[in-house]
């Protein structure tokens, strides 16, 4: 399984599946933070965006994802102030430049992104920016990898471990996988040769029965990760449960702001009452994210669900399986 959506895209884009022998099957995992954001959480973001005097800021790929009833893009079209930002630092500057508004950042992302968000909170505190808020929907990779393996729905021999998440967390957090599950793990880069090297190393582990965590992406990942980034994350966030689309609530798999940074917490500083969440009928994103189905199994795929009119997040996100199959695969056979 390639866990990370970025690897799924690279594998498809560079025709790697067609190069691999029939004995190797690649399954896509839930490593797309946009795709795994549950409707309940997206509905919260949309409810916050409707509040008066609020500027809602978000990474671009979240804007078009349909929640239960709406999306941030539709909310913007309705006249609410919703702005796409490239960097969380841009959201902070919007807060600094608009002191009479409340600026809420919709925090999506795994461990690659969470340290940048942590840095923005510390910067806000340091610069006295008191109108900046975070809705933390951040999630952690090793816990969901464990949850997926414990579900036992897919039998894996190897995992292409995330590249840039590992730049932050290093390779040690994956050690439980070869140790407890006898599954090969290799951290991969994103160039086509990086991925082929990774698969070669995985096959080697499987064939020799020597399961371990190796790093193929050594120019970008150290075993100990980025200690400064980890320190920033640890200063600002604590581990909490998180709601994963298609999987449900998983303990200790998310991040929330520590009590000390409560003043920046959008969840506790604003009063919202979104309508009960619901899932889009027929959408298979949930089981696709667990590697149990592919987009080809979904009746909506390339019919009522296309990049122009997406039903679920896997078709919206640039790293979603459905968008990847649509753009780079054969929509009939994969």
């Amino acid at each position, binding site marked *: 399984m390639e866990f990370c959506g970025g690897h799924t895209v690279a594998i498809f884009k560079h025709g790697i599946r067609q190069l691999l022998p029939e004995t190797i099957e690649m399954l896509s995992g839930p490593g797309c933070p946009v795709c795994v954001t549950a409707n309940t959480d997206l509905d919260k973001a949309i409810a916050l965006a409707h509040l008066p005097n609020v500027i809602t800021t978000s*990474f671009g790929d979240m804007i078009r994802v349909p929640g239960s009833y709406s999306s941030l893009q539709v909310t913007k079209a309705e006249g609410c102030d919703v702005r796409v930002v490239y960097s969380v630092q841009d959201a902070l500057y919007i807060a600094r430049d608009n002191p009479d508004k409340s600026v809420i950042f919709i925090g999506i992302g795994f461990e690659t*992104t969470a340290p940048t968000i942590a840095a923005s909170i510390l910067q806000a505190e340091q610069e006295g920016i008191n109108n900046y808020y975070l809705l933390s929907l951040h999630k952690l990779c090793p816990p969901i990898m464990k949850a997926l393996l414990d579900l036992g729905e897919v039998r894996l021999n190897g995992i292409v471990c*995330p590249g840039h998440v590992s*730049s932050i967390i290093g390779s040690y957090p994956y050690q439980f996988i070869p140790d407890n599950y006898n599954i090969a793990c290799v951290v991969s880069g994103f160039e086509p040769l990086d991925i082929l090297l990774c698969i070669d190393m995985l096959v080697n582990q499987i064939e020799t029965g020597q399961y371990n965590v190796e790093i193929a992406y050594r120019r*970008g990942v150290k075993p100990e990760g980025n200690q400064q980034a980890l320190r920033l994350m640890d200063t600002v966030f604590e581990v909490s449960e998180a709601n994963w689309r298609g999987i449900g609530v998983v303990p200790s798999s998310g991040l929330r702001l520590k009590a000390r940074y409560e003043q920046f917490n959008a969840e506790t500083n604003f009063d919202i009452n979104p309508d009960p969440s619901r899932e889009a009928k027929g959408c298979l994103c949930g089981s696709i994210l667990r590697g149990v189905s592919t987009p080809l199994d979904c009746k909506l795929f390339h019919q009522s669900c296309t990049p122009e009119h997406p039903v679920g997040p896997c078709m919206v996100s*640039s790293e979603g399986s459905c968008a990847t199959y649509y753009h780079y695969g054969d929509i009939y056979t994969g």
Partner: protein
Amino acid sequence: MCLAIPALVKSIDGHQAEIDIDGVTRQVSIQLTPEVKVGDYVLLHTGYAINVIDEAEAQETLKLLRELSEVR
């Protein structure tokens, strides 16, 4: 979402740096990589340098890839 691309550090000013990606320059934060030096390549993710790219390891990987292609 976890996309990060290599960028060359052109200058540093406190917690910010000017980087260059193929001629396009931008101010980014180096709060996650305070050890970075001018001339380093960093992995850039949403306006933050998340890692300094290890040139020796990059060369090592290229060597490994060349060896791999020779075996096949």
